[in-house]
């Protein structure tokens, strides 16, 4: 017995949200690694542009995962539930 019907595919919106969350985890890990090995700045204070760019990407993704992803996920879920409920009633 399977919980997921055969041939079922997750909606594209769910996949997109999942990819954003996954990307956030990966970029956080890459950023942490880059700051450990190269640092944001050299000991003399020169910025490492690549690491800083990774940091900007990490923060943008964190904002997306913190605010956009849960809002969109809940909203889509509610709309889908309402549609399903409406179809059954009809």
């Amino acid at each position, binding site marked *: 017995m399977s919980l997921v019907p055969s041939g079922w595919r997750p909606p594209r919106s769910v996949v997109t949200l999942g990819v954003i969350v996954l990307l956030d985890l990966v970029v956080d890990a890459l950023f*942490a690694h880059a700051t450990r090995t190269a640092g*944001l700045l050299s*000991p003399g204070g020169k910025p490492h542009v690549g690491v800083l760019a990774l940091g900007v990407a*990490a923060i943008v993704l964190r904002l997306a995962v913190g605010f956009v992803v*849960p*809002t*969109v996920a809940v*909203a889509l879920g*509610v709309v889908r539930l*309402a549609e399903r409920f409406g179809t059954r009633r009809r």
Partner: protein
Amino acid sequence: MTGVTRARWAIRLVAVALGLLVTRVATPWVAGRWAGRWLDGDAAMQLALAEELIAFEADDDAARATPATERFAGEWALVTHQMTALGLAQIALAHPEQRARLAPEVTRAALKSWRAEMRGFGTRAWGGEDALASTGSTHGHAYFAYPALAVGVARWLDPAFPAATAREHDAVIAAYERRLLASPTGLIETYPGESYPTDCAAVAAAIAVHGRATGADHSAVLARWARHVVDTQLDTQTGFVVQRMGWLDAKAHDAPRGSGTALGAYFAGFADRAVARKMTEALVAHESSFFGFAAIDEYGRGRRGAGDVDSGPVVLGVSVTATGCALGPLRAHGFRADFERVYRTTQLFGVPWRDSDRVRFVTGGPIGNAMLLAMLTSGPELAP
């Protein structure tokens, strides 16, 4: 618009509202889940960040032993070593069982902040006059209070602190006491003709901690400094500390600002609890919040300005330094709800990362982590 279309739009609106509601509850909860542990002085939490800074100091020692072309020196390095010493000392005070292990680490970081290469920026500003070599001078050299405070806490905690540096420290503190008592404004210069009340708060903190380390009575100079802070250095409208002033006439050379107030409140806490609390209340009054996340404004109402080396970036009116440094006074003076909101912002933008037994805020770099260590453990250092 048909009834079906209207119903669809209504469902979509309700769905978005529900989504926002869930985000309003869940996201601050996730971002603030460590705030309570920091507030309650969780030893595991504090030691995890402490281990990161201890490892940084060890790496820094190793780098110094090699013929590198670039050295970690100057103003940022000075503050990094100073804040590491202060943070570790606060943990040792809060958890006395850690004192024997942490005291030598406090001394190591404090002694590095004391090095001549760290204060080179100040020596250059005074035309080559070194703060340590000119204790008989009337020049303020207030920037040197940062390492003097670090050395003070190391002397307070570490019975094996080197005697030669302790003698130098005594001379520096005596100079600061004499200069502050002679000042008509309670201010002394950081650079020629310029005084920063925040640096003067660090001077007061260094004097106060010297008293705790040696038993010397500095109550007269500290009481005088506290009176001057309230009378001339705090802006009557905003409660913020004026960022830069003339040391002889106490005229404002810059606006009252959040960054100077937040760091000043932390330093003031070592010397005078009431003054520090007054500054902290000004920070709370200038807290901007959104969706359960808060940050501290750099300027009071009606003023605007760009970020600089003191404030860091100013985005939507709030500054990185004011926000990060506010955590210390908010924790120390028991503003729990405000601490939690500001901490959530730190967690969101700081990108905390755990490596085995160590935790660090990835966007902070060494200076950010050292400052957060001092701020997130602030409290045990407060003046009685």
